[in-house]
Structures are given as structure tokens and as C-alpha cells.
């Protein structure tokens, strides 16, 4: 095949592309690799959990949310008790 320094003949392009297509084929990742990766995506990594626990703003909101919820439940329970107790008086 005649070689010119900076040009490619059509035959050369076809031959090169055929070689490349033969080598650069799409591979199938091993099933266990896909499975491991899927688990990493679905479940937060331990590092992420530690970071979440260290996030004081998040913890503040979680704590205040739980306390507010408890307060609402106690208030409703007290109100119910008050009304039921009044009926029996």
C-alpha cells in the first residue's frame, strides 16, 4: 500500500476501520460486577452514613422533627382524655 505522509486513501481508511472495529468491540461487564455496583448505588455507603450523622444541621432537623411530632401526639392524647373524662363527670 502506497503511503503518503498526510493523506489516507479510501482503502486505508476502510482497512483501518475494519481493524479498529475488530478490536474495539463492546464488552459485557461480568454479572457479579454489575451486581456489586448495583448494591453500591442502592444502599448508601458507610462513609455516607457517617457523614449524615456528622451533619449537625440535618441532625437538628431530625431531632426537632421527632420532638415536635411527639408534642403533637401528647397534646392530642391529652385533649381526648380531657373530653372523655368530662363526659363521665
Amino acid at each position, binding site marked *: 500500500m502506497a503511503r503518503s505522509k498526510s493523506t489516507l486513501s479510501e482503502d486505508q481508511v476502510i482497512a483501518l476501520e475494519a*481493524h479498529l472495529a475488530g478490536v474495539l468491540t463492546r464488552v459485557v461487564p461480568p454479572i457479579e460486577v454489575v451486581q456489586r455496583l448495583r448494591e453500591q448505588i442502592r444502599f448508601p455507603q458507610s462513609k455516607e452514613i457517617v457523614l449524615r450523622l456528622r451533619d449537625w444541621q440535618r441532625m437538628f432537623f431530625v431531632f426537632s422533627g421527632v420532638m415536635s411530632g411527639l408534642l403533637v401526639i401528647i397534646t392530642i392524647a391529652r385533649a381526648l382524655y380531657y373530653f372523655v373524662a368530662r363526659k363521665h363527670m
Partner: protein
Amino acid sequence: MPELEFNEEDVLTRASQGDRDAFGLLYERYIDRIFNYVYYRTGNLHDAEDLTARVFQRAMNHIKNYTDRGVPFSAWLYRIAHNLVANWHRDRSRRQEIPIHDVPVLPSKGDHPEKNLVRSQEQDALLRLIRRLPGERQNLLILKFVENMSNAEIGAIMGRSEGAVKSLYHRTLLALRDQLGDQSINLDGE
């Protein structure tokens, strides 16, 4: 999930709102492509797995910042993969690289399971040449041949115009032709 039911825009919106199941759908859709890209850029199954995981972890952590400005989500993922692979090469530049012919050959799509997975010497030589090319040329060849992308799609990922990709491809083929000639690999066919 069948292709017809997959509305990427909707799935992306849900994923950016923190819906892990939606992100899982994106993962299922792109895992093969990202793995292939990383595998060919590293030539190493173990690192390909590790880097693919990091690509999706990073994508999951930053998906809120993803905005569709004409760049498809796949291009965004490939850019993350490209950056991580570049860092990986930088970190490993001082260490010895695993030659591609020592790496187990993975079955290609459509291969019969019992097919003998052995590369010819010529294919090995060509792979070694490809891996010696500059990173952007390797990216171009992987996206073109492994992913069957058009020059325009490759341009969107590489941040270049279609014409620039075409020109880079031509220069890459020229370089490969010369190097193949130096290694006495026949380009004329049988």
C-alpha cells in the same frame, strides 16, 4: 424496563429530587456504556469496576446540579468518567501499568458463551497502540467504535465541534497507520 416506557426526562427529574429508584433506572441504562468506556481506557477489569462505581456515585451526588442545556445526560456521565479516568492515569503515571494482553478478555456483546476468548497477536498489538495514543484520541476511538456514536455526539461529550472531531479522527487514523506500518501489521487485508 422496556425502552418505550423509559421517559428519560421524567426519570431525570425524579432522580434529581433524590429518588434512588429513578437513579437506579439511569444506572441500569448506562452501566454497560460507562463500564465499556472505563474498561478500554484503563485496560484493567478491577479498576474499571472501581471507577465505574465512582462515576455513578459522583453522578448520584451531583445529579441535582445537572441541567439539560442541550447536552444529553449520557454526555454528562461520560464527562464524569473522563475526569475520573484522567485522575486515575495521573495517579498511576508513577506506577507500572498492566499490559492489556495480561488482562482477561471479556466477552463481546453477541458472542456465543463458548467462544474462545483469545485475542490475536495483531489485535493485541493494535490495542497496545491505541492505549499509547493521547487520551482524547483514545476517547474518540472508544466512543466511535465501542459506542457507535456519530461525530456530533462525540463532539457533545468532548466539548468540540463536529468538524473538530472529524479532523481529530483523521489525524488519529494517520498516526495509527504509520505506527501499524512500523510494527509490520498489514493494512492491505489478507
